[in-house]
């Protein structure tokens, strides 16, 4: 049993200028905190979430039991790799999400209607700007670490570019300095599945009292395939059949893998918002800090001051080790402090959410070093 987590909301009335040129006049952020902020406010760690997660990083909700456990509870908590007995950990939900921060399911204050498809496009940089205001509002001048996996890793990297003096360490796991064409392609398939669902109504499906479930399900099925490795899929499912014998049907479920993907899609379509899915995959596509520097990542990193821990997983083909090594190389070119660990875990991209002991130990040891060097 994990500890009890309490979600909170903070409101911001200062307008946020977005990369797209749009402005969010006011907004709210959902967040959670675990552990105690020390007197010098030097032990704060910010956790950035990936595609379908939220501010609920660790712990359980009162009365909701183990099913409500946070998405990175294996990593974060009392006595864990990121030890909440030592660190003050902040989980924050990003703008455009459907879990509490201002997003497409909220009211547009100007039109008094649900934002829906009209919610402005947000980027990793916009999220980080919003997160920085939360950090400031909590009275924290400098984070001792910012950490995330996948899209969360992009935010952890972006922090060190946007606010180089406000982050001592950045922990970037199973991430990349930008998406490659194949990765954008997967996102586009997912988006097309949603947009082409007749229930989507250009993102204004709330008004029609429907949900584009079919699109969401397919989007999740595609995504899920890319989070696993070939080996894991074969070990877990292989060619196992759902029933005792073949039905010779093109429509019904024959193989276990089909059943699994349909189940994952079904589950996802019950809790995730279609507009949020579009927004978040777009934020992934747009992230590219080297772009303004003639596509030279080393040049883009000149302003970085933070130290880095970069981790990748050998069987991750969606965010392959080669992409993490690009980040490592650009840091080395700038003589920045970096430690890089390439974990030989079989689980593909999903490994960053799992509990491989080598992975958890490296993170633990890195945070022990951070703790030793904290200002008191």
């Amino acid at each position: 049993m994990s500890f009890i987590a309490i979600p909170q909301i903070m409101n911001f009335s200062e307008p946020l200028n977005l990369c797209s040129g749009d402005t969010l006049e006011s907004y709210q952020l959902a967040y959670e905190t675990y552990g105690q902020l020390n007197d010098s406010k030097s032990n704060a760690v910010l956790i950035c979430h990936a595609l379908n997660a939220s501010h609920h990083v660790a712990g359980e909700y009162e009365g909701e039991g183990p099913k409500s456990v946070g998405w990175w509870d294996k990593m974060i908590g009392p006595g864990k790799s990121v030890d909440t007995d030592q660190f003050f950990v902040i989980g924050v939900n990003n703008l455009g999400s459907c879990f509490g921060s201002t997003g497409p399911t909220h009211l547009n204050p100007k039109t008094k209607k649900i934002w829906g498809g009209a919610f402005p496009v947000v980027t990793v940089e916009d999220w980080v700007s919003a997160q920085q205001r939360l950090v400031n509002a909590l009275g924290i001048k400098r984070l001792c670490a910012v950490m995330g996996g996948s899209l969360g890793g992009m935010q952890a990297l972006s922090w060190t570019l946007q606010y180089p003096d406000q982050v001592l360490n950045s922990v970037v796991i199973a991430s990349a300095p930008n998406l490659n064409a194949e990765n954008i392609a997967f996102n586009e398939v997912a988006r097309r599945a949603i947009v082409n669902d007749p229930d989507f109504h250009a993102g204004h499906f709330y008004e029609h009292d429907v949900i584009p479930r079919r699109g969401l399900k397919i989007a999740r099925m595609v995504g899920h395939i890319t989070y696993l490795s070939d080996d894991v899929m074969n070990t877990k499912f292989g060619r196992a059949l759902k029933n005792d014998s073949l039905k010779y049907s093109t429509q019904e479920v024959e193989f276990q893998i089909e059943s699994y993907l349909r189940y994952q899609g079904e589950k996802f379509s019950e809790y995730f918002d279609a507009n949020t899915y579009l927004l978040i995959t777009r934020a992934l596509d747009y992230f590219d800090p080297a772009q303004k520097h003639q596509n030279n990542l080393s040049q883009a990193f000149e302003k970085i001051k933070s130290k880095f821990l970069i981790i990748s997983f050998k069987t991750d083909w969606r965010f392959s080790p080669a992409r993490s090594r690009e980040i490592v190389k650009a840091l080395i070119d700038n003589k920045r402090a970096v430690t890089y660990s390439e974990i030989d875990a079989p689980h593909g991209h999903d490994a960053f959410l799992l509990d491989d002991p080598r992975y958890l130990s490296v993170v633990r040891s890195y945070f022990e070093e951070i703790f030793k060097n904290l200002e008191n």
Partner: protein
Amino acid sequence: MNKRAFIATIAELVPQGSRVLDLGCGDGDLLNYLQLHRGCDGYGVEIDDQNVLQCVRRGVQVLQLNLDEGLKMFEDSSFDVVLQIDTLQNLRNAETMVIETVRVGKIGIVAFPNFAHWPNRLSILRGAMPVTKRLPYQWYDTPNIRVGTFYDFELLAQKNKIKILDSFGVKDSHVMRAFPNLMAPTAVFKIEG
């Protein structure tokens, strides 16, 4: 071989305040020593999970990479010193790695077991591959896949037009300059591209 004393001997060759890259850095002992005693900074490269973890534990910056995949990540002359201490004999592409060492480093320091050390020669004369304190492995399970001698390395350097700035043998952490190919279990070379 007394590890501490050997580290001190190697460290003597590294100029104060150098930016170093230690290829096959193990648990980070040498880098840690260089940081503490010679004001150096830099990175270790290591493939083994347990060693990587030890490096992180002592605050040594380590990069988990496979040296057999080369040093593409590092630019020309981007380090003052590239160290290859007891690594060369484990690498498939040993020649390339010696060349890469002096490409990436302004100087390279290479140390490896000298297979021409006289007890090894005796063992071969008796008809058996040497098993000694310095070379404790049986031929069938040794990680030492590139067995070379002090003299062999001189030839390799010559072939690749690599300049030997200094070279000596080490025995029981003592520097041996007389007949190192015969007398020293460990060969040490300071090289430049």
